[in-house]
């Protein structure tokens, strides 16, 4: 198949062909997303529409360990996002573009090597006007190398100034400044899905491009994301939002994707999804960090990442830390709090009367049977302490879920099985409230 064929011809040649309409706006958006992603390699990225991206890697060769390493990483990243890529590395932007378009897939570290490679390219440069290309062919000039042999003034007269200047820029004989891509102030990127997605898990694969772009954008802006949200546009026009909250700010793409998968595993789609939009809601500056001098053994992902994954799968309320609340009523003394992995300063836990409170507390006091010899719980309970009166609580009486006004006498008791219990007696009778485990 070649460009310019009729659709029917193309379908005849390739019956299973997926056909889409050419949309320059979407192409531009995809290119910008890719530019964001490329921010992880270099801060100097330029767009070369319709389908080119220029990365200035001269300044970061040392960081990555050579041009070959960067090229490998770029290729691997493109493959992960399922983009097929034609690349070339050369000292001038235009030279690299022409070589890439010609399918060079090679490094040209020096200007001489690049000029030699350029000399072998055909004169049919896509950016040049067709009449100029036709005139060169009529003159018998097949290769770009042939143009260097003919007098420049005559060439300018015949094919115009533009192509000759291009040639000089490509060869590095004329300055060729590029307009750098401006990484946006706020991150919000769309992704039109090629097909309707009905299963939530499949969105993880589609969302990978968005998260790759987010990670590159965070890298180049030296920022971390704490909260981002994935906006789903359904094919019936409705929209839904999937918020992703990290326990600690991070710029790690793999971690974001793991979190996304956990969330998607629990998500029920109301309707098939047509488009995705990723918005970084809460961004903070990245603090500098030292890299270890020697290779450290892998210590696992750490507390924050683990808690965040558990919360994603089990729900926000299922993973909590304990907190102590100054209230004399036992059911009010414990509060479940948000785990804060990065809390450096600990509030000193005020130790009260040690040992007289049970380690386990029942959610609701369990009524105990009362017989002639006192309360029973797996046998008669022997009371071991004097009663401890805990009373009052009028301030939240009648509120939903509050303990309210209480008047109880608490005892430590033991049953014949050797179980130590914390029981109380009030107007309703005996209750089991805690276990001295």
């Amino acid at each position, binding site marked *: 198949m070649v460009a310019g064929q009729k659709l029917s011809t193309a379908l005849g040649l390739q019956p299973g062909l997926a056909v889409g309409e050419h949309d320059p706006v979407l192409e531009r958006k995809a290119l910008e997303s890719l530019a964001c992603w490329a921010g992880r390699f270099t801060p100097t990225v330029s767009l070369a529409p319709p389908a080119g991206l220029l990365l200035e890697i001269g300044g970061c060769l040392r960081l990555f360990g050579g041009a070959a390493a960067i090229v490998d990483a770029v290729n691997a990243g493109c493959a992960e996002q399922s983009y097929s890529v034609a690349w070339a590395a050369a000292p001038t932007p235009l030279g690299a573009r022409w070589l890439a378009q010609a399918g060079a897939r090679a490094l040209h570290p020096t200007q001489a090597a690049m000029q030699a490679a350029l000399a072998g390219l055909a004169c049919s440069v896509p950016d040049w006007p067709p009449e100029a290309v036709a005139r060169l062919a009529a003159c018998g000039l097949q290769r770009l190398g042939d143009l260097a042999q003919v007098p420049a003034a005559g060439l300018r007269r015949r094919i115009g100034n533009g192509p000759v200047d291009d040639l000089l820029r490509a060869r590095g004989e004329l300055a060729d400044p590029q307009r750098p891509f401006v990484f946006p102030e706020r991150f919000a990127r769309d992704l039109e899905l090629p097909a309707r997605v009905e299963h939530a898990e499949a969105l993880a694969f589609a969302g990978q491009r968005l998260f790759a772009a987010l990670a590159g954008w965070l890298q180049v802006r030296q920022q971390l994301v704490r909260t981002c949200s994935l906006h789903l546009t359904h094919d019936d026009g409705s929209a839904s939002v999937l918020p992703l909250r990290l326990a600690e700010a991070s710029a790690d793409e793999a971690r974001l994707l793991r979190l996304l998968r956990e969330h998607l595993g629990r998500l029920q789609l109301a309707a098939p999804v047509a488009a995705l939009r990723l918005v970084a809601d809460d961004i903070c500056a990245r603090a500098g960090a030292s890299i270890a001098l020697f290779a450290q053994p892998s210590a696992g992902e750490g507390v924050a990442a683990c808690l965040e994954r558990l919360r994603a799968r089990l729900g926000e309320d299922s*993973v909590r830390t304990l907190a102590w609340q100054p209230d004399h009523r036992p059911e009010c003394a414990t509060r479940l709090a948000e785990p804060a992995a990065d809390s450096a300063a600990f509030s000193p*836990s005020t130790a009260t009367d040690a040992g007289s409170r049970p380690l386990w507390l*029942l959610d609701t006091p369990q009524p105990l049977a009362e017989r002639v010899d006192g309360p029973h719980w797996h046998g008669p309970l022997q*009371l*071991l302490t*004097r009663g401890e009166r805990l009373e009052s609580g009028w301030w939240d009486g009648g509120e939903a879920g509050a303990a309210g006004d209480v008047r109880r006498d608490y005892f430590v008791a033991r049953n014949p*099985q050797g179980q*130590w219990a914390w029981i109380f007696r009030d107007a309703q009778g005996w209750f089991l409230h805690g276990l*001295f485990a």
Partner: protein
Amino acid sequence: MSSAPLPVALVEVLARGDVWCGDTLASLAEASIPSGHAELDAELPGGGWPRGNLTEILVDRSGLGEMSLLLPALVNLSAAGGWLALVAPPWLPHAPAWAAAGVLLERLVVVDAGRQVAWCVEQLLASGGFAGVLAWPAADLDARVLRRLQVAAESRPVFACLWRSTAAAHSPSPAPLRIALAAGGGDLSVGILKRRGRPVARPLFLSIPRPGRTNRVVAGPAFSPAATRSTALAALA
């Protein structure tokens, strides 16, 4: 043939941490956590609760002092800044008691795992950030899951403890240390079912700190319900 030298000296083999003689206790690669009970430390390989290994505690009834047995070790871990996790505890931890014991509440995570206890424990162990993980799994825990948990705990400095019922004592388990707890008079009877070393013949009886004054019974079994009810009502009136 018989005079061929051994490729490795026997002494060198015996010096390895994962090889132990039948009549001595194994030494552990990771430093163990002192249990706070000298009699128990003497019987545990490494002289304390193991890190990087699964420990099973089999107990049927709660309130025997089983948590107090572990508390000195947990306080130790917490004081060193370690994170503790309780996965699917049978009851709610009572914050004042844990704080009074010396556990940092900010670093005590309570996970309501539902049916995914094993998955949670595996994640917590593999994360490498937790110093202690205590889990109360459902009764139908198969050996394959236990094996996974043991692998997740290996080579991580974490005290991993699973609470199971004594019915599991006869089913095989990859946990290197299994302990059965029961009430024994006023003390806690600690039977070591399995350890790396010679088997233990009889259970240990450890005295666990208990609340209140244990020597004096305030109100004995001869406790008149009718009389107390009337006095209680009178007090309320």
